[in-house]
């Protein structure tokens, strides 16, 4: 048990920070309620998927600069596919878009493995390529989304036997996020592929010598990132009802939240829960700063400062724990 806490101390700390922030929000804005929390989660949804995508790749020792562009491409593809189509067609469109994201990610991975061009260069190139592709698919914001998809992330659902006061704080968007991330992450974490992803990020040479198929693992890591990016793209279309071809601010946000979430740049360490909690923290900080009517220009300065301070504090605590 203590070992479990020690190993997950970073995530536990982030949860504590998040709860503290919620309490703080409630203090500065007494009428902050479940509804506001619901919209916070909805707003955080695409960010959460983006950081999930980024985290997998960083854990595998790489980086993916094309996350936001992949989200744009998948978002407009979904919007175009569902435009004027029946509600049922969305059942086909969604898996199609997810598969598309998977393939786009795999292309990233294959290019990196085959050409041996550094990941940062390949994915930077893909950033621009996919930006253009998104505009080719849809010149200006438009398209549509199936109604049931839009409804899926709104409101709450009553869980039998649980007080309404509690379910009110469990918005559907959160359930969608948790279920879709868990469906990929939990089996992955338990599989040899999951171990291999950590292994190649931790030490490529040692992984190779342990018999890990390094290239294949790397391609799959990027492909899974593409899958999460497609989920992010879908969530964009779901929440706005249309597709927007211009990539949102998800690239830098995904790297920031991954780092804050305990994923070490360079690979091998971290998970996916921490970064997602970090996304919520960063969104909530933004809300609080608005509530406190801080100059919007100062907001990003404060966000940046929080990131550096938290990561430094974490490193300091880890160092102290080790030297003891």
């Amino acid at each position, binding site marked *: 048990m203590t070992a479990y806490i020690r190993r997950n101390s970073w995530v536990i700390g982030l949860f504590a920070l998040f709860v503290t922030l919620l309490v703080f929000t409630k203090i500065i804005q007494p009428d902050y309620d479940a509804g506001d929390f619901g919209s916070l989660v909805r707003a955080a949804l695409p960010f959460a998927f983006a950081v999930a995508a980024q985290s997998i790749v960083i854990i595998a020792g790489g980086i993916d600069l094309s996350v936001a562009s992949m989200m744009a491409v998948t978002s407009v593809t979904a919007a175009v596919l569902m435009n004027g189509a029946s509600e049922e067609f969305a059942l086909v469109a969604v898996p199609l878009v997810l598969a598309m994201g998977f393939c786009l990610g795999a292309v990233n991975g294959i290019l990196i493995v085959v050409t041996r061009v550094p990941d940062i260069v390949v994915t930077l190139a893909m950033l621009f390529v996919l930006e253009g592709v998104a505009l080719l698919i849809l010149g200006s914001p438009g398209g549509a989304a199936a109604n049931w998809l839009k409804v899926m992330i709104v409101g709450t659902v009553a869980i039998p036997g649980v007080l309404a006061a509690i379910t009110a704080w469990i918005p559907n968007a959160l359930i969608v996020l948790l279920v879709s991330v868990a469906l990929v992450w939990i089996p992955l974490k338990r599989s040899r592929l999951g171990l291999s992803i950590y292994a190649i*990020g*931790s030490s490529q040479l040692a992984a190779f010598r342990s018999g890990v*198929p390094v290239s294949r693992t790397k391609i799959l890591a990027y492909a899974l990132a593409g899958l999460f990016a497609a989920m992010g793209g879908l969530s964009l279309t779901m929440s706005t009802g249309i597709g927007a071809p211009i990539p949102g601010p998800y690239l830098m946000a995904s790297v920031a939240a991954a780092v804050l979430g305990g994923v070490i740049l360079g690979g091998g360490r971290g998970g996916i829960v921490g970064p997602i909690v970090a996304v919520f923290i960063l969104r909530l900080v933004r809300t609080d700063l608005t509530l406190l009517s801080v100059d919007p220009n100062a907001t990003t300065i404060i966000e940046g400062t929080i990131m550096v301070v938290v990561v430094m504090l974490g490193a300091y605590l880890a160092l102290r724990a080790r030297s003891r």
Partner: protein
Amino acid sequence: MNALLDASGVAKSYGAVAALRNASLSVRPGEVHALMGANGAGKSTLVKILTGAVQPTAGRILIRGEQRSVGSPGEARRAGLLPVYQEPSLIPDLDVLQNLRLTQTPVEPFRDWVRELGVPALDLKDLARDVPLAIQRVLDLARALAVEPEIVILDEMTAALPADLAERVLDVVRQQGRSGRSVIFISHRFVEISAICDRATVLRDGETVGVVDIVPGVEEQIVELMLGEKIERRRRTTGPVSDAARPSDARPRISVRNISVGTKLHDVSFDLHDGEVAGVVALEGQGQDELFAALAGAARLSGGTIEVDGETLTMSHPRHAIDKGIALVPGDRAEALLMQRPVRENIALPFSAPLRRWGPIDMRRESEKVLGAIERLQIDTRAQGEVQRLSGGNQQKVTIARWIAADARTILCFDPTRGIDVRTKQEIYRLLRELAAQGKSILFYTSELEEVQLACDRAIVIFGGRVVDVLPAEIADEAALTRAAYGLARDAEADVGVLAQHPGTAGASP
């Protein structure tokens, strides 16, 4: 007799450079087979080919008479060939159990082997990075043995192990042979090879030059094969040069008084004089790392003083030591070299880098000094582009060359001959003696006890962070040093384990 593994005509070239020309290796069932050769002879390339890490350009590998391709470490594993490399191959960020799962190693046999190898309490939930390096290597071995491979390949397995673990490892290797499995054993240590191996294959310049049975006295023959010429493993016959060079009342170059560093080094005092090579002998982790770091200005003293030329120094940065002409040649070459930069820059770094002299680097002066040093050490500079392409021995020479070029008065050598071949070792001993003869002073930590009599004037023995004895070279043979290094009094007799049964070779693996 049917060979379990039969590799023949194996060649590998990287571009125009042939790392391996025509190597062959045949291992019988139940045999512990040594693979020997000077550095750069192609041992590691051959191992990499056998274990699927590198693809050969030519050659044939038969396992139990069947041709097998070993295209990747995974395939080699399935073919029953398992390596234990010099650097641990556990994934640092996974715990031990996850590492086992990654390689699909059964846990129970692993546990048994861990016990058998004498590893103290091990929590399988520990991250590999938190496990001490020596233990990691043993775990690596246990992991390999747990899948019951037909052939285990051990690359310098005992190099970084404390004596007790090394003995257990050697015992286990011997048992492997008895139980009908084979071991390919790579080592520079004749003691180990004569203790556990049946035959040896010797490589030179990428070719197999001989296969010999291990019988008493075969060492000379192997060395001849390795070098292709008769070399003498001669003792230094001249008396300590320092006797003549140094009046006994002269002020010492460095005078260490009662220094302590952290919890590792306590109350250590000694003098280092101009014109002497002082050996430092200690088992693994007795505080020698801290001693060298303190003298090089890289660790803070928690007590005591270091006087240089009679002047007390407080050093808080290696620059302070370097300014006083004290240079460190670290044990890990990667710590000293800019691996991706050329030889010239690496050698010029200490004297060209200081910023206080503005303006462009005086290239003529620089290349003069650099060429002088390269000449003097006979560094093989064919791989000019990047230091990382040089062989280990040549890299080591570069780290020493830079301080000769920088004209350091005192050189602290931390195990400079670790993992390099016999010929380069001889060159380094000779170089150290020459430097001493020119009045420079050298502190020389060595993990190979025979080196004390080959290169040093005396040996300072450290045990448990304290200086326990100082032996003049004449009496500092391996037996005496081993006893001292274990903290035993000079005249006490003691067993130091399995290796002590071989007369005159006691504890060559501290």
